[in-house]
């Protein structure tokens, strides 16, 4: 474990290089690699190969290093199996394919060392689950294997130590790998960017700070400007170029851009030809940029460890301080930035807890193991529970997974005769045929991209407005299908640094034209953050608010704002929940400030609205941001609370996470999306491969239809359980909501006000950006229908 820039990657290879250079080279080729290196990014694997080549050649070690990624051509892959290199650099997905290979047992028999890079980033996702299962297999194929994890500083190093070595069932204490900690490194020089301007109470664009950021770019060699979302990246890029009188080379980098364009930006950066890159989390990890001398983080930091990672991208040398600025977008974000500054000062970490292995990933792995060789279920189970994320897996659950892989795991045994894996008379499970194995290989991996639509420039036909020639221009990148669905022809939006006009869809492509100069994009950049505020930072923000002595460190405008809140209402204690109720424009409002992140708040808002409805307070809508929620209703809530003192406590009682939650979750679009991801990972439906077109309505079945049918007829199916497990900890943050409700029991501070308080203004400003409660499909349809009537009557 070492801070970024300590050189841990090369250190990880040293034992292997020593062993390989000392070993006499036998006559026969080796049967498999001596050392395996796994990185979350294929670009990183390629980069490491380059960095290893120099010392190996320089010292004349004669060690062969090769990469194996999704880009490796087939002939090279075949050769790598026949004539393996000494050191093989690869990704978790490619490793999964390798261990599912028929030759895997032989190929990995000489493996002595496996190095897992950026382990802290891998273990927090389903990719980490997949990798843990592969590692368990490697430990079995090559007993005595040394696993080395390379990680940035994390909160719970013991979790990573367990991840690396085979686990044993309790009561034996969990085995752990040795820990080597590299301390120190120069302390980061991290500051809040104070532009002296008054910040808005909501919004994330940080428009006010753009000139200051531009000045920073001018004053530095190379600057990385991190933002939280793709749309924020587009916005920032656009604004910086508006100011770019010196025509500095400023580039844009995010996951939706065309891959070749991203590679060009990366190459230009590596060659030192750029002065700044505006980028999203796509550059959080990885490549050693060398000459970056400043990092600017626009928007809320969201987590202490995340911000430290980003800062570490600057000045990749141990002995010099990394320099970085935090740029808050609104007054609340100043608080969050201050909390992050304090956390960095104390080197506090808030990396997430260890994961419980996902069942859908396990299903994929079980099929892969059947592809490798016939398996004995007991032996495979023992191997799987030696992987830390699956250490608590029950035998029955494993059996359910095997049953799912074989025939879909349905109570109605409809698919016995089509089984993908079959149990022979010898008790071993085998894959049915080569076609099943082929399907496995096509669907391996845990990254399920949301369906994407290519964005292509089209030429408009002169004299025929609204018509364009398809397939004429180049592809600018991809946008999520969900985003594209909300566009109607004529809408303008920011993409790839330009204002584009949406002309329509042609097959699987969104056709766009360049909007005229000076056009403002009509579709607002959705500027919320997709990362939830970490529990740790949230607690620090609450602590700052609760402690007036801490306000000295805050910019004056924030301290003034908090003072105003204290005089108009109250500031909540560190562990308290502040609830305010007040009338405004004929409606009655409730605001609450749990500081648990937008996703948890949305769930909370929906549940509170249901309760208020049952209490006949007639809720109309709600809005949420990272810090709080606002709900508005027709009836007077203040009056009700005055008349019924226990009402508020009951409203926020923990039992709200019961039937209401279940009912709402099951209907939510988020849950359907989560289900789709589980279904793809577990191989229920096949991945859509880029380049492979949809061939008509009969070929694919919408996962929403599948979800609805399955939920009705077998609600406890493995994949529904998998989706619920994801919802609890992932996108919907249900677990966090539960922890919050527990924390605030008996600690609700309520103020009935006669008007909106300063604190409440911030969340009230979110109103209008959010969907209104009760606005179901039928309300939308009714509105469209009304327009037809209007036409008919006019």
């Amino acid at each position, binding site marked *: 474990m070492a801070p970024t820039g300590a050189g841990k990657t090369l250190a990880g290879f040293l034992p292997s290089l020593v062993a390989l250079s000392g070993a006499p080279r036998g006559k026969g080729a080796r049967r498999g690699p001596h050392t395996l290196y796994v990185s979350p990014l294929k670009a990183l694997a390629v980069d490491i190969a380059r960095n290893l080549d120099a010392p190996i050649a320089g010292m004349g070690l004669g060690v062969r290093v090769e990469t194996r990624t999704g880009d490796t051509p087939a002939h090279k892959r075949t050769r790598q199996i026949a004539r393996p290199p000494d050191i093989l650099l690869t990704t978790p997905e490619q490793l999964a394919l390798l261990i599912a290979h028929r030759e895997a047992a032989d190929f990995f028999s000489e493996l002595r060392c496996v190095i897992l890079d950026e382990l802290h980033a891998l273990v927090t996702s389903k990719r980490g689950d997949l990798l843990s299962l592969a590692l368990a297999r490697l430990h079995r194929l090559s007993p005595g294997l040394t696993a080395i994890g390379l990680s940035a500083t994390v909160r719970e190093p013991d979790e990573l130590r367990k991840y690396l070595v085979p686990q044993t069932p309790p009561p034996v204490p969990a085995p752990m790998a040795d820990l080597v900690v590299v301390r120190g490194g120069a302390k980061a020089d991290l500051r809040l960017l104070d532009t002296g301007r008054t910040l808005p109470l909501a919004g994330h664009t940080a428009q006010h700070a753009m000139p200051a950021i531009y000045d920073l770019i001018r004053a530095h060699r190379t600057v990385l400007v991190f933002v939280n979302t793709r749309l924020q990246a587009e916005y920032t890029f656009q604004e910086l170029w508006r100011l770019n009188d010196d025509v500095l080379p400023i580039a844009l980098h995010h996951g939706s851009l065309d891959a070749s364009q991203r590679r060009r930006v990366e190459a230009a950066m590596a060659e030192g030809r750029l002065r700044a890159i505006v980028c999203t989390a796509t550059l959080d990890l990885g490549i050693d940029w060398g000459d970056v001398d400043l990092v600017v983080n626009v928007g809320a930091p969201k987590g202490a460890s995340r911000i430290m990672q980003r800062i570490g991208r600057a000045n990749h040398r141990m002995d010099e301080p990394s320099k970085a600025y935090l740029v808050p977008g609104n007054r609340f974000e100043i608080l969050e930035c201050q909390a992050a500054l304090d956390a960095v000062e104390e080197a506090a970490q808030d990396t997430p807890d260890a994961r419980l292995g996902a069942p859908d990933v396990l299903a994929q792995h079980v099929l892969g193991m059947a592809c490798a060789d016939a398996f004995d279920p007991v032996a495979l189970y023992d191997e799987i529970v030696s992987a830390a994320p699956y250490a608590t897996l029950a035998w029955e659950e494993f059996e359910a997974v095997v049953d799912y892989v074989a025939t879909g795991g349905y109570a*109605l045994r409809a*698919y016995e005769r*089509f089984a993908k894996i079959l149990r022979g008379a010898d008790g071993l499970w085998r894959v049915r045929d080569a076609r099943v194995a082929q399907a496995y290989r096509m669907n391996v991996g845990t990254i399920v991209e949301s369906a994407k639509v290519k964005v292509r420039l089209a030429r408009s036909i002169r004299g025929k407005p609204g018509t364009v020639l398809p397939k004429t221009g180049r592809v600018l990148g991809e946008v999520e299908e969900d985003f594209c669905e*909300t566009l109607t022809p004529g809408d303008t939006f920011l993409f790839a640094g330009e204002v584009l006009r949406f002309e329509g869809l042609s097959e699987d492509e969104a056709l766009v034209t360049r909007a005229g100069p000076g056009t403002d994009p009509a579709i607002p950049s959705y500027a919320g953050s997709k990362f939830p505020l970490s529990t740790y930072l949230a607690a620090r923000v609450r602590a700052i608010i609760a402690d007036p002595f801490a306000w000295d460190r805050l910019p004056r405008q924030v301290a003034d704002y908090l003072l105003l809140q204290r005089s108009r209402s109250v500031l909540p204690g560190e562990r308290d929940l502040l609830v305010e109720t007040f009338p405004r424009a004929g409606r009655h409002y409730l605001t609450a400030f749990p500081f648990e992140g937008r996703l948890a708040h949305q769930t909370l808002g929906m549940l509170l609205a249901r309760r208020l409805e049952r209490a006949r307070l007639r809720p109309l809508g709600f809005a949420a941001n990272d810090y709080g929620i606002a709900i508005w209703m027709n009836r007077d809530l203040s009056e009700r609370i005055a008349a019924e003192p226990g009402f508020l406590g009951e409203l926020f009682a923990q039992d709200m996470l019961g039937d209401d939650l279940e009912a709402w979750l099951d209907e939510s679009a988020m849950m359907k999306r989560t289900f789709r991801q589980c279904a793809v990972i577990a191989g229920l439906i096949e991945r859509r491969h880029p380049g492979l077109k949809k061939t008509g309505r009969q070929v694919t079945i919408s996962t929403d239809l*599948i979800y609805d*049918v399955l939920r009705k007829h077998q609600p406890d199916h493995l994949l529904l359980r998998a989706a619920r497990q994801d919802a609890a900890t992932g996108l919907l943050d249900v677990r966090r909501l539960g922890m919050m409700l527990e924390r605030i029991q008996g600690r609700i501070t309520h103020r009935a006000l006669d008007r909106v308080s300063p604190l409440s203004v911030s969340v009230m400003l979110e109103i209008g950006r959010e*969907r209104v409660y009760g606005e179901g499909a*039928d309300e939308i349809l009714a509105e*469209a229908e009304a327009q*037809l009537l209007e036409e008919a009557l006019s």
Partner: protein
Amino acid sequence: MALGLRLEKTHKAPTLTLAGEALTLDLCGGLWLSAHRTLVVSDLHLEKGSAFAARSGQFLPPYDTRETLACLHEAVVRLDPARVVALGDSFHDARGPERMEPGDRAMVAALQEGRDWVWIAGNHDAAVHEGVGGRYADSLTLGGLRLRHEPAAGAAPGEIAGHLHPCGKVAMRGRTVRRRCFVSDGSRLVMPAFGAYAGGLNVRDRAFEPLFPAGFTAHLLGDGRVFAIGRAMLARD
């Protein structure tokens, strides 16, 4: 919340007149011809899930047939039709009937009990001629109405067809709603697919243009009622 909406069916199902006959557009996606006491449903695609398992090894939940039949059962109990017409593609493929679970088979028999049951041939199930009760036909004439699976080319007054699985999409304030729908221009009508796993084709697709040269109204199946939406308000996919 959505459930609440479904329960309060305060709206009466809309009625259209085609070739002088009154048609009721039922929220379940079926068409009720009260004068003939006939219920028409189209594109059931029974055993589509098992067809996927047999053909491509994808194990979709094998409950689509019973789900589709349950919806049909609800409509039959409510309307008590003298005749049920399945307007083609009732089975996803010719071997569908033999893959059917005994329970589902019994359900079909129960539905057929005491009524005239007509299987109109579709392109997916043209080869199915026996084994599931009822009678088989290529098309059916009821008064001024002509019931067939595939819409005929050119003008076809009084035609009721399926085959195209029409869906309408409404996009408003950053939200979209996509629902199955009936499509009609007052002369002919295309029915929505009834099957649980039947997909949908956007009514703005080119396939609908020759059928409705002068435009159409789509009747979208909402949660609580059927909504008549003009072509101008319908978005492309």
